[in-house]
């Protein structure tokens, strides 16, 4: 399988910071779902932003950072404009902040389409309505004319998904796509995203702090600690994770019906910061 994305030895160094925020990150992504898991400050979101070259205040270096036939590392800003939103889309945590509050939701979706494809407004609207239907919105015509403050969080995130998938991207980066949502709609939104990603054969990078989410909705998992990948493994093998950090994260999560004993606490070790990230 030809990888969509091939990253080797990615490092991100924020200017003025003494240490790189991310270092030595390597992975390949085919038409599959990759989870990047870590705690706050582990650099997981920075990786997603580095791929889209959205980091103005940081130096991004890598041995290799290819997306399909584009060398992301040396791509000009003009080239990136045609990649961002069209070939690679990004879904952010809270739809409240990603949707423009002064425009109708539907118009924003059409606008996204018109930015990347030559077409008439009418056609863009038809495409937008189709897409809204695909994210299981029952009455697309009505939702099309709503303003962002008139829709709920779950609906807003579905609208964002519609907008992001409308341009038929090859890769979607979802940064904590459901952490702002309630648990009852979280699954629904995830299933819609998951269904569309599989159906259209899109590559997915799911950035999350939540191991459950990654376990159920990804094929491969990258576990990051302090800007480094400490372990890469298949999602179904998550329970057999070897690295003490991965195991610590899994154990620290309280579980429904779990024992009432004190939760195991993660003992951080300096050796995890070694560049090779090696561990038995």
């Amino acid at each position, binding site marked *: 399988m030809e990888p969509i994305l091939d990253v080797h030895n990615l490092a991100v160094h924020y200017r003025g910071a003494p240490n790189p925020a991310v270092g030595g990150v390597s992975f390949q992504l085919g038409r599959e779902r990759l989870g990047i898991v870590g*705690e706050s400050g582990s650099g997981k979101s920075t990786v997603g932003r580095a791929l889209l070259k959205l980091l103005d205040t940081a130096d991004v270096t890598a041995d290799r950072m290819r997306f399909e036939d584009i060398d992301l590392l040396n791509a000009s800003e003009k080239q990136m404009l045609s990649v961002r939103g069209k070939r690679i889309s990004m879904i952010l945590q809270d739809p409240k902040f990603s949707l423009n509050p002064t425009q109708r939701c539907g118009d924003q979706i059409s606008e996204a389409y018109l930015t990347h494809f030559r077409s008439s407004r009418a056609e863009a609207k038809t495409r937008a309505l189709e897409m809204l239907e695909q994210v299981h919105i029952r009455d697309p015509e009505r939702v099309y004319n709503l303003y962002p403050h008139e829709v709920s969080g779950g609906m807003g995130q579905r609208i964002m998904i519609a907008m992001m998938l409308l341009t038929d991207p090859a890769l979607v980066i979802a940064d904590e796509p459901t952490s702002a949502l309630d648990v009852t709609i979280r699954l629904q939104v995830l299933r819609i995203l998951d269904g569309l990603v599989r159906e259209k054969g899109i590559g997915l990078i799911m950035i999350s*702090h939540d191991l459950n989410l990654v376990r159920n909705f990804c094929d491969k998992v990258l576990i990051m600690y302090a800007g480094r990948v400490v372990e890469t493994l298949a999602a179904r093998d998550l329970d057999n994770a070897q690295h003490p950090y991965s195991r610590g994260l899994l154990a620290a999560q309280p579980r429904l019906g779990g024992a009432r004993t004190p939760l195991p606490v993660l003992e951080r070790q300096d050796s995890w910061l070694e560049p090779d990230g090696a561990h038995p």
Partner: protein
Amino acid sequence: MKSISIKQLSVSFGAVTVLHDVDLEIAAGECFGLVGESGSGKSTVLRCASLLNATWSGKIEIDGKDIRTMSIQERCRTMQMVFQDPYGSLHPRHSIRSALELGLIVNKVDDRETKMAQAMRDVGLPVEFLDRYPHQLSGGQRQRVAIARALVLEPHLLLLDEPTSALDVSVQAEVLNLLVRLREEKGLTYLMVSHDLAVVDHMCGRFAIMQHGRIAEVLPREAILDGSARDPYARELIAASIEYERAI
């Protein structure tokens, strides 16, 4: 140990009614959970009980005493609250010492240094941290400070408003363990709001599920797994949480 009882608590902001006749009985020494989606009014219950929001009707009693008839000092020394966001609940320009000392000064408590040192030890922080500022602490350390600030007045009742939802899993485990230990050691009563059923299951003996400002159902902890919930929404929420975890 003190019990708290909430009777017919109703809150309206203008024409919008946020809470409809909420009734809760929490026994002394119990840890009681309050679960619901955002906007269900679960945090509003805490804000009413702490009188941060004073425009409500109904009755809230602690050990049979109406909280409206308590003096401010008595109320402060009976109940304290821990907030969700450890970054917003500590004043950025105040050292940890002044954050803890405020309550002691206002309530004219003597022997402040000992009390503060004790509170810091209780939450597992070195006493030297008293002279630090919030920006010098990590999120978990800040939440410990927030708990120490609540404990320094030696209250009987702690209102916990999503105390760990802004923290990482590993830090959440530390703070939850701390809260469990403190309740055992000091015989505290907890009223804890959370959107995470797993956290409530870990901490609480009983919990209430709220929706649209009403109590949908009050359930014992066992009801999560044995499916004894009756209310349709309660069943939906529990089912969604179990499915989301799907790893039992």
